[in-house]
């Protein structure tokens, strides 16, 4: 039976929300294709190379760490629809870098030889692991796709490219969104533990981390122009849209002074940003041309935008938020 493999990032002691979206999409696909859905977690075990934990194929998780946390993760993945859970143990410190977890992830790929590998597009490891996974198995790669269809489910990206059940070859998909599924009640699922001797790639040394400035944000940015910042109707609609997209607001010091954006969200005039998606509202004074995807609201488009909305800004934004909330 074909394997659909979902990479699960952890957010503290629970699966990352984007990974659970990927799991939901994987569940829809696996059910449609008659495939087995594996959810794989990479966990740190400082004693992995001693062989103290032999590979296990039982329902009992013998894993390092707090037992309640482990059970909570297992239960969340079972509710999310996983048929089987794979835990890859590595001596490396877990970090969202191929150099840290790539070897352990490779062991999972070698074990399962999946036909479809799914990541949450907004999960921390997706950027580093997704493309390299695809290259390693010679797969097609889809950036930000979602499951579509009811009986014959496919994963389709914004360009219209899709992964279907009868396609030949492997595919790697970064899932951007998925409809929530009804919780699965099958709590009796297999857990497979893979133990990997060795750890991280010493060529990449993680020396430390600090909070990133907003100008370095790579997710979704809503950039607000001073020309619209003081309109209460627009401000309310902006916040509503930011909530539905999980976006960060950025603006000028003037926008911060009236409370539309936080003090830490002020971006200097002319500063360049390169997020995955920028929604520019009015005429923000920052350079948004580095955005992977750019939507303009209230200024009628411009060079190489992906979309634009003209007309009353507050009404357009509120309606846009409502439509997205309903999806």
């Amino acid at each position: 039976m074909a394997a659909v493999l979902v990479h699960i990032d952890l957010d503290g002691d629970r699966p990352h929300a984007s990974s659970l979206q990927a799991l939901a999409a994987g569940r829809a696909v696996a059910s449609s294709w008659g495939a087995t859905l594996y959810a794989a977690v990479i966990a740190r075990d400082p004693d992995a190379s001693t062989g103290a934990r032999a590979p296990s194929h039982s329902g009992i998780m013998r894993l390092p760490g707090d037992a309640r946390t482990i059970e909570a993760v297992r239960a969340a993945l079972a509710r999310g629809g996983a048929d089987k859970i794979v835990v890859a143990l590595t001596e490396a410190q877990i970090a969202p870098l191929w150099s840290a977890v790539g070897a352990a992830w490779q062991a999972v790929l070698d074990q399962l030889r999946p036909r479809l590998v799914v990541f949450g597009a907004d999960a921390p490891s997706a950027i580093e692991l997704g493309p390299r996974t695809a290259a390693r198995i010679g797969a097609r790669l889809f950036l930000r796709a979602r499951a579509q269809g009811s009986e014959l489910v496919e994963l389709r990206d914004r360009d219209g490219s899709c992964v279907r059940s009868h396609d030949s070859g492997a595919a790697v998909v970064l899932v951007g969104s998925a409809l929530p599924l009804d919780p699965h009640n099958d709590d009796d699922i297999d857990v497979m533990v893979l133990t990997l001797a060795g750890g991280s790639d010493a060529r990449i040394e993680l020396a430390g981390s600090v909070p990133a400035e907003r100008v370095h944000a790579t997710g979704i940015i809503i950039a607000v122009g001073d020309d619209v910042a003081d309109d209460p109707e627009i401000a309310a609609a902006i916040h509503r849209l930011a909530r539905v997209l999980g976006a960060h607001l950025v603006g000028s010091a003037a926008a911060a002074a009236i409370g539309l954006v936080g003090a830490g969200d002020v971006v200097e005039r002319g500063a360049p940003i390169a997020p995955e998606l920028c929604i520019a509202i009015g005429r923000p004074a920052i350079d948004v041309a580095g955005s992977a995807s750019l939507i303009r609201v209230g200024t009628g488009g411009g060079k190489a935008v992906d979309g634009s909305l003209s007309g009353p800004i507050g009404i357009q934004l509120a309606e846009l938020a409502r439509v997205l909330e309903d999806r």
Partner: protein
Amino acid sequence: MTAPDRNTDGTRVVAVWLGHAPPVRSIRWLDGALKAAATFAGATAVAAGHQAWLDLAADRAARAGLASVGVPTELELDYLGWAQVMASVARKLAATTILVDEASRPERFAEVGALAELTDAAQLTHVVTLAVDDVTIHAARTAGALLQTVRIHGPAVIGLRIPGAPIDEYPTPTPSAAMRRLDLAALGLDPAVLAHRGLPPRASPLAHRTLERVADHLAVHVAPRKGS
């Protein structure tokens, strides 16, 4: 002892991959990648694709003081196809460090991992600052809400998101005699084989102008709902 990212003669050879097509909106990030590459002595800029793009790449590389290599081809390839082209150029140049202009086009970041896989190098994506000393490359990369500080000790593929100076208009580039042309055959690549990584031809996407179409575009970004 020779540092791990050096060739046997002790040199660190650096190439910067500019990709197969011009930036979508601004050459600011292309210039930033070239400027970062110029901090390494003797770095070479590499581009592939159609002639107008190669001319632009050669022009911007020359302004940054870099030599350039162009691979003229009409092929439209996926992430792995272009990575195969760049990996072949890197072998030809004996490059041990490959920088990638990750920000100029949305699909480019995927080529970082693919290039690293094909060259058996370490990889680092989303790098926003880069500095180099005799033995180590120091980088900072964004990872969600964090800025990670990283030291790179060996052969690596590094995806850059470093802006250059703001630029509104730039002179139309003329064909550059300084760019070294390498065709696919010279790289040991068979276009017929490479075409297996080809993408179907597509019309340029039109900007979405209605609320429904914009909502469709944004639908893959909707945040997970609480409890889902």
